[in-house]
């Protein structure tokens, strides 16, 4: 019971911090907007994917990108907490390291999923065909992929000494995962070199984006894997990353 309340209180803390940070919420509109409006419109010449416009095609990818970038950004909170001493307060608390990791991970994931949901609203405003059922189906997939991505961010951050060094690592993780996820172009044997295909098969985000496309684009999209297969892979990825993250949080100097 103590553990659950500990997890809850750490989760609540992340949510409160997020909701009080207005600049973060406002700015969360802009990045996906730039991708969808400028990149999405500008790259229209690259043609359509099946019956889809390019903007429609990248929309689920931009949700994935938002989840990824936000999740990685959340890692900063670990360094922040350490710089400002709060991490000590958490680390001497009599709850397990797993609970500490889980509380933080759930809190950061909630923030990231809220950001992802905001992209849904943007898509609606941009005229992409969306409905509530789609959103409700996509939500669990978003949550699932976010768990693993946030775990990457928290783990990486727990090894970093400063905000600067984490910034470098962050873009080092962000961009390859994003570019190789199929968010911006289809990963198909006939379209991309085989090494890109191999690399993206190893990228957990590929399966997240594929699952989101299957849900949002429906029949217009021919999925890479069946949905359950995507979800299974993401689930395994989550478990592995959470185990690694817990280990990283358990290290004692």
């Amino acid at each position, binding site marked *: 019971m103590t553990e659950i309340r500990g997890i*809850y*209180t*750490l989760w609540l*803390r992340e949510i409160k911090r997020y909701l009080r940070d207005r600049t973060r919420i406002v700015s969360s509109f802009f990045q996906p907007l730039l991708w969808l409006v400028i990149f999405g419109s500008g790259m229209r010449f690259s043609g359509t994917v099946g019956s889809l416009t390019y903007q429609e095609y990248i929309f689920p990818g931009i949700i994935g990108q938002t989840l990824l970038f936000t999740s990685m950004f959340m890692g900063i909170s670990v360094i922040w907490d350490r710089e400002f*001493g709060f991490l000590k307060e958490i680390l*001497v*608390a*009599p*709850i397990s390291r797993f609970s500490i990791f889980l509380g933080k991970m759930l809190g950061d994931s909630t923030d990231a999923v809220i950001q992802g949901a905001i992209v849904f609203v943007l898509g609606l405003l941009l005229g992409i065909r969306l409905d509530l059922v789609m959103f409700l189906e996509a939500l669990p997939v978003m949550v699932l992929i976010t768990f693993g991505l946030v775990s990457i961010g928290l783990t990486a951050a727990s090894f970093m000494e400063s905000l600067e060094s984490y910034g470098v690592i962050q873009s080092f993780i962000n961009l390859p995962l994003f570019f190789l996820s199929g968010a911006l172009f289809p990963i198909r044997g006939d379209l991309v070199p085989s090494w890109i295909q191999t690399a993206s098969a190893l990228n957990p985000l590929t399966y997240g984006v594929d699952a989101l496309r299957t849900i949002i684009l429906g029949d217009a999209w021919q999925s890479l894997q069946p949905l359950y297969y995507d979800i299974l892979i993401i689930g395994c990825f989550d478990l592995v990353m959470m185990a690694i993250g817990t280990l990283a949080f358990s290290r004692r*100097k």
Partner: protein
Amino acid sequence: MIIAHLFAGKTYSGFPKVAKPVRTRYFSNLDSVMLSVEEEAQRETMRSIIETVDLTRQFNNLIAVNKLNITVEKGEVFGLLGPNGAGKTTTISMLCTILRPTSGKAIVNGFDVVKQATQVRKSIGIVFQDPSIDDRLTGRENLYMHANLYGVPPSEQKNRIETVLKLVELEDRADDILRTYSGGMRRRLEIARGLIHYPKVLFLDEPTIGLDPQTREHIWAYIEDLGRTHDITMILTTHYMEEADRLSDRIAIMDYGKIVALGTPSELKETLEGDVITVRTKETERLSLIIAKRVKIEKTHTSEDKLEITVRDGKALLPRIVEIAANNNVYVESVSLREPNLEDVFIHYTGRAIRAESGDELHGMSAIRRRKIR
């Protein structure tokens, strides 16, 4: 010697297995004491709440804490006094399970700090030297978070939080975001936080560092009251002599990672056996040599513009010393006499001031305090 008695008693009774007790030069009759406390050993073990055996922590080449053996009794306020960098915070960090000892072992409330860290964490409350509160949350939110992390039953949380808020006089600011708090208010909130879960041992690492005199006075009164009413053992680290003197039941003076003296404040001061005459002059070295030839001196300590002489009967010798100086053409700026304080005890055992630059005035404390405010 009373101190030797105390010290030997602690070391042996707490740890029957200790092969080599810490021997410091002024404890000479350990062996005779040893036998007399043997039968009490069992009971003594029950009374002690913190015990360390050769506790050591090394950072690369630096030995921050060197084979520390201390025993803290239940309910006492135990002061760890020493200059910055003496190893106080490192010691506390190990006792709080934040740092792993390089070697040796430590028991807190009957639990091993390495093997039973969670149990130890449940038994302790900590007020860290550096701020450790979330400045984006309100005071009350910080307290609720702490209560949840430490497993305070939800039904009791509200009550306890209101009580501690009242105690540190922050009720009216409890719902403000912490960013708007002053340094003293944050400190008070951290002390309040350390008490919510009714810890057995409360660690106070430099609790009043950087606070104004009124706030310090307030926090001291509060800590004193806490010790009396709540049966909480407190470990206090400080480099403020007056703080250690006022609050501690026993004080361990730490330097270079070792305990150099241990006893109650009055016992420590008694070991000096004398008053301190401070002579301010430009010719400290010469004057000290001249005086040493004519007056019986227990100890001298010279710095650039100040000569401190420890003597048996300060009142009688003060005029003599001025006379000697005058006869030898040493210009004396000022002379003062005082009863020994802990600063002198520290100098006595380490041969230097607790902070090299603390010799501005008689006690030098306000000078240190000003410097420490960040």
